[in-house]
C-alpha cells in the first residue's frame, strides 16, 4: 500500500479528569473508505474533532500527507484539505446551490482596480454545474434555495462543495441519518464515487449496514480506546457489535 494520507500516532485527548481518547494510532490510505465505529461516548467524535481542528490533542501526533500538522482552528484543517461534513451539513438553506458551494469563497468581478467588486454569478453557476457533473449529481435547477431540496440532495451539495475545493480527505459524520432509504443509497453511491476519484473517506457511523455497503476497512473504538481495526470483508455484524459494546477487545487479548 502507498503512504497513508492521514496518520494518527498515540493521540490522547483529556477533558479534565476524563480521557475521551486514549492513545489511539490509526492510518487512512488513499482511495479507501474507512468506517469509524463505536457506541455513543466511545470517543469517535472527539478523535475526529482533533483531526478537523475543533479540539487540540493533549498528547500524540497527527500527520497529514506526510507532514506533521497542528490545527488550532477548523479553518486550518480545511485549508490543508480535510473537509468535515457534519450532520447539519453547514449549508445556508435560504441560498441556492452555487451560493452554497462558493459560500465564503465567492468569485468576484473587479471594477475600478478592485474598488468595486460584484459577485460573478455566472462563473459560480457554471463551475458548480461542472462540479456536480463530475460527481454525476443532477439537479433540475441550481437557482432555487436549497431548502426546497431533499435531505439527500443537500448532502450531495455539501459533498460537491468539499470536492470542488479540492478536499484530500473527507470526513462524514452519520451521512445517512434522517434520510429515506432510496436517498441513503444515493449518498452511499456518492461515497463510492468519491473513493474512486481518489479522495479517501472516513465514515463515522453506527449504522452497520452502511459499513458493510461502502467501507473497505473499519476501526472500532470503545471508551476512548481503539479496540480493533479490520478489513470489512473479514468481519460480520455480530462480531462488530461485540467490539462496540466492549465484549470483544483485540488489545486486551494481545
Amino acid at each position, binding site marked *: 500500500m502507498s503512504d497513508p494520507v492521514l496518520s494518527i500516532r498515540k493521540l490522547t485527548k483529556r477533558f479534565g479528569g476524563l480521557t475521551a481518547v486514549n492513545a489511539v494510532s490509526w492510518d487512512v490510505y488513499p482511495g479507501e473508505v474507512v468506517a469509524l465505529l463505536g457506541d455513543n461516548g466511545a470517543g469517535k467524535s472527539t478523535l475526529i474533532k482533533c483531526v478537523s481542528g475543533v479540539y487540540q490533542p493533549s498528547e500524540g501526533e497527527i500527520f497529514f500527507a506526510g507532514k506533521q500538522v497542528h490545527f488550532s482552528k*477548523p*479553518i486550518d484543517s*480545511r485549508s490543508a484539505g480535510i473537509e468535515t461534513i457534519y*450532520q*447539519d*451539513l*453547514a*449549508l*445556508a*438553506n*435560504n*441560498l441556492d446551490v452555487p*451560493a452554497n458551494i462558493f*459560500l*465564503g*469563497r*465567492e468569485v*468576484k468581478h473587479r471594477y475600478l482596480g478592485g474598488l468595486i*467588486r*460584484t*459577485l460573478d454569478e455566472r462563473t459560480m453557476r457554471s463551475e458548480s454545474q461542472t462540479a456536480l457533473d463530475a*460527481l*454525476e*449529481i*443532477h*439537479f*433540475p435547477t441550481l437557482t432555487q434555495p436549497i*431548502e*426546497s*431540496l*431533499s*435531505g*439527500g*440532495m443537500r448532502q*450531495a451539495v455539501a459533498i460537491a462543495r468539499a470536492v470542488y475545493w479540492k478536499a484530500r480527505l473527507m470526513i462524514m459524520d452519520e451521512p445517512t*441519518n*434522517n*434520510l*429515506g*432509504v*432510496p*436517498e441513503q*443509497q*444515493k*449518498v452511499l*453511491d*456518492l461515497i463510492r464515487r468519491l473513493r474512486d476519484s481518489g479522495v479517501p473517506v472516513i465514515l463515522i457511523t453506527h449504522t452497520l449496514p452502511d459499513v458493510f455497503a461502502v467501507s473497505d476497512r473499519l476501526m472500532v473504538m470503545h471508551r476512548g480506546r481503539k479496540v480493533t481495526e479490520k478489513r470489512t470483508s473479514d468481519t460480520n455484524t455480530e462480531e462488530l457489535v461485540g467490539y462496540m459494546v466492549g465484549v470483544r477487545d483485540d488489545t486486551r487479548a494481545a
Partner: protein
Amino acid sequence: MAVQPSEAAPPAGGRPAQLSPGKRFLVTVSGLWAWLFLALMILFFVVTVPVFSSATFVTVRNSQNILVAIVPIVLLGLGQTFVIISAGIDLSVGWVMSLGSVLSALAIRDSYNMGAPIWLAVILGLLAGALGGAAVGIINGTIIAKLKVPAFIVTLGTSFIVRGMALLMSENTTVIGLPDIRAYGNESLLYYVRGAGGGFYFLQRPQLATDQLRQLDRILPWPVVVTAVVVAIVMFILHRTQFGRHTYAIGGNLEAARRAGIPVDRRIIAIYALSAATAGIAGFLSTLQYTAGSAVIGDSLLLSSIAAVIIGGVSLFGGAGTIMGTVIGSLIIAVLTTGLVMLNVQAFWQFIVVGTVVIVAVLIDQSRDLIVGRNERGSET
C-alpha cells in the same frame, strides 16, 4: 446511479423538488402580492376619493407628497432590511435618526458660524449625521457580535442612551439658528407650473407671482433624490456584492457561515453600522427639510419602518427579503395613510389599518412557505 430528484417516491425526509404549475403560479402571485396590493389600493383611492371629496387621488402634487412622506420610513427600513435579513433586529433606528438630526444641525450651524460656505456646511452636516449614526451602529454590532448579547437587548439599551444624548446635545429638543438651507431641503430636481404659460423647469425654481404659487408642483424634491440614490446603493450592496451574500448567509445559517470562513463578527458589525448610518442620513434630511435639528423627530418611526420591512416580505427569522420589498412596503403605508386622510377618515384609523396590513402580509408569506414546504430555518437535519 446518479443522485436525482426522487421521481417515483419522495423519501420520508425529502420533499419534491418540483412544484406543480398551479402551485408555482400561487407562489409567483404571493411573491408579487405587495405590488398587487399597492396597485389595488391606488385603484381603490382613485375611485373613492372623488366620491367623498372634491379632490383627485392621483396628482403630481399628491404623488410627490407621498414620496416626501416615505423618505424617513424608507431610510430607516433600508438598514433594518439588512439587519433583519441577518436574523437580527435594530430597535435604535428611530432615536439614531433623532441623534443624526441634532448632530447634522449642530455641524451645519457651527461650521457656518465659523465661516464655512453653505454647501460645505451642508456636506459636513451629512457627514455628521451619517458618521454619528454609524458610530452608534458599530457599538451595537460589536456588543452583539463579540459579547454575544441579543440584538434586541443591545439596541434597546443603546436607543435610550442615544435618545438621552440627542436631548442633551440639542439642549431643548430643537437646534435652531441654522443658516438658510431651504435650497437644499425644500427645492427639487424639476418644477412644473400648471396652466397657461406654465411648463417644466429643470433645477431652477421659476419666479412666480403669489397667486400663481398654487400652480407650482415640485417634482423629485432633493430628499427624495438623495433617498433614491441611497436605495440604489444599498440595493447594489445587498444583491450584487459579497457583503450582501454574506448577510443572507448569516441570517440563513450563522454556524454554516462561520464554518465557511465568513468573518461573521466583522459582517455583523458592518450590518449594524449600515443600519445606523442610513438612520443618521434620515436625520440629516429632516434637518434640511425643517431647517432645524430635532431630538424627537424619529420618535414614532421605529415601528413604522419595521412594519414597512415586514409588509415588504422580509422574514423576521432572517435569511429572506429584498430592498425593493421594503420600498414597496413603505409606499403601501404612505399611500394608505394619505388615501385615508383624503377620504376624511379620522386619522386614528390609520393605525388600525396599517396594523391589519402587517398581519395579513405575514400570513401571506407564511402560506407561501406552506406551499413550497419550506422548513423552519435552523432546525435542519
